[in-house]
């Protein structure tokens, strides 16, 4: 089952390599990984998705929490949460599947190429990819999952 873990870490050189290194060191698999600064410049937010049973994910979150640069960790998939991913796809004009996308999806267009963007859950994007397979997209880029809990819980710290 796919799990989404989000964490806040000190915006320090080397912090990211400690998080990523932990996964390979302990034999965990990362499926997607997204890192970006937060509105607090001293913190970065990292979201990762991984496959694993509950016990493995519990170990992963505990081990992540032990890293000195990690301020907070949460296993978003423990409760209701929203997961979204962005995907960009490049088509030649001749093979563009007009029935699948509308104007709002198109982010660039010239005489030969159309680029589209789609936002959805990873599962929706997976489905879409198989739908457009016959149109031979030139390139598909996925951002990896972001997540936010559905209820009042937040992954933020008070300063």
């Amino acid at each position, binding site marked *: 089952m796919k799990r989404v873990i989000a964490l806040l*870490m000190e915006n320090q050189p*080397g912090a990211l390599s400690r998080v990523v290194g932990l996964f390979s*060191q302990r034999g965990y698999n990362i499926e997607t990984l997204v890192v970006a600064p937060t509105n607090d410049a001293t913190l970065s937010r990292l979201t990762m998705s991984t496959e694993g049973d509950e016990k493995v994910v519990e*170990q992963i979150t*505990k081990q992540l*929490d032990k890293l*000195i*640069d*990690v*301020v907070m960790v949460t296993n978003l998939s423990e409760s209701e949460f929203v997961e979204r991913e962005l995907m960009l796809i490049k088509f030649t004009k001749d093979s563009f599947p007009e029935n699948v996308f509308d104007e709002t999806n198109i982010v660039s267009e010239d005489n030969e190429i159309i680029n589209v963007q789609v936002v959805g859950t990873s599962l929706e994007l997976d489905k879409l990819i198989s739908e457009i397979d016959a149109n031979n997209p030139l390139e598909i880029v996925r951002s990896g999952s972001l997540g936010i809990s559905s209820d009042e819980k937040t992954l933020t710290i008070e300063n």
Partner: protein
Amino acid sequence: MDKSNKSGAEALIHSLHLEGVDLMFGYPGGAALHIYDAIFNQNYVDHILVRHEQGAVHAADGYARATGKPGVALVTSGPGATNAITGLATAYMDSTPIVVISGQVKSNLIGTDSFQETDMIGVSRPIVKHSFLVQRAEDIPDIVKKAFHIATTGRKGPVVIDIPKDFTDPEYKFEFNYPSEINMRSYNPPEGADTSSIKEAADLIATAKRPVIYSGGGVNQNNASEELTALAKLLNFPVTNTLMGLGAFPGSDPQFIGMLGMHGTYQANMAMHNADLIIAVGARFDDRITNDPKQFALSAKKIHIDVDPASVSKIIHADIPIVGSAKESLTALIEELKCRDLKTNESDISEWNEQIKNWRDAHGLNHSLLEMGAQNGKILPQQVIQSLYKETNGEAFVTSDVGQHQMFAAQYYHFDKPRQWINSGGLGTMGFGLPSAMGVQLAYPESIVSCVTGEGSIQMCIQELSTCLQYGLPIKIINLNNAALGMVKQWQDMQYGGRHSSSTYENSLPDFVALTESYGHVGIKVSKFDELESSMKECISLKDKLVFLDVDVDPNEHVYPMLEAGNAMDHMRLSKDEKTW
């Protein structure tokens, strides 16, 4: 507070001084030379020059294990840093508090493949609790403060501080301010007792019929030996210790049932297997203990006290997890038991203790081998340990290397005090014994410090004999010489049809007595049983001398009991031709 202007190098040494460091181990080189010059110009911190950086880190580690205070090592960049890696991994696996400072090439050269450049932060990342790459000279005091805080709190461990040479430049000075406290929002290790489940733990204890207290290195690290002993005495429960936990409960106490695990005693492994309650304290259920975790102590409830949340329910599910300091949590547990005027199942407990005694009588270790004299004309390695125990009244610090000699020392020297037994349990580092003994001897100059080793392990850091001469360290090296890599050979005997692939030396061993004497120490050779006790006496009596006691032992001896891989803990080989299943 000293606010005079200091260079980065001076600030580093002064910060160490303010952390209470009076001794460090190291080896100079280009990127560390500003620091070495600052060491030369002060009197607070002594520096011990080792012969190889691995020795520096092991010595700092040995010092930390024996004293409980953080050990410090200083190395240069590149090869200095990479030579320190085995020492770091050793300390990491056994959770010992050390701080390793490495010189780094100048900051503008980082990433250019410059001379003696290694990415120390990257290379050491998976084997440190944390590391710092200094970015400004002014940050050094703050980083030192954080490094010592991280190394010595929670589950302890090694911390690296990598300092580019330009940040220790004597020409650049800044106002020195040592922080009086630190606030790290991202690091809040559990402190104090976890009392959330103490009542449930006490309930289980009150109803247990076949309980075992299983304690590990965490009890020694957390100075919780007194509390552990008090709990065991209060309850009259049997106690077993891991290899790392020996000494936490007195080894010569009748309630002690010996070490458990791979080479644990028959009665300890049987007690674990048949228990209905296991109270684990500062132990982590590693594979050398549990054997097959799926078959581990299936009828036992587990109370697990540990300071590291990630250790709890990692391998074996904890029915009652207690995440906090062992010392404080045990104190809380004892209070809870006392205030409810606890009654245990006294008759069940005494029946259980009787059962354990029967197991011990049937297949326990023979602690009177010395009285039996030579066996087939040979000296048994166990007899050497018993002789050492006798001549040191059980009071020596014993360090060891890794292999059969380590197991014999753990099995046959009864450690009555925590921090008395110092060995590389987690990583299993050959070469650890002699340099760690240097750290112990420097911490306790008046005590007997012996290094139990083998002719394989000792040659991995034998260059430190020179360091021992320079600083007058009268370590007693007890070499169980079986002319082979004994544990490797044992496995080859048992699992590879006796094919001794690269585990013997074909008459290439040095004359250890002559070698030791060439370093200015005393060497004594023992090849007959009749010489063992008198030579051991002489070795121990030469108080001011390092003595290398080179004892030829029976090369065919195996370590038993031995757990049979892939099974439960009651599957043991008891000798070459006896097994329990």
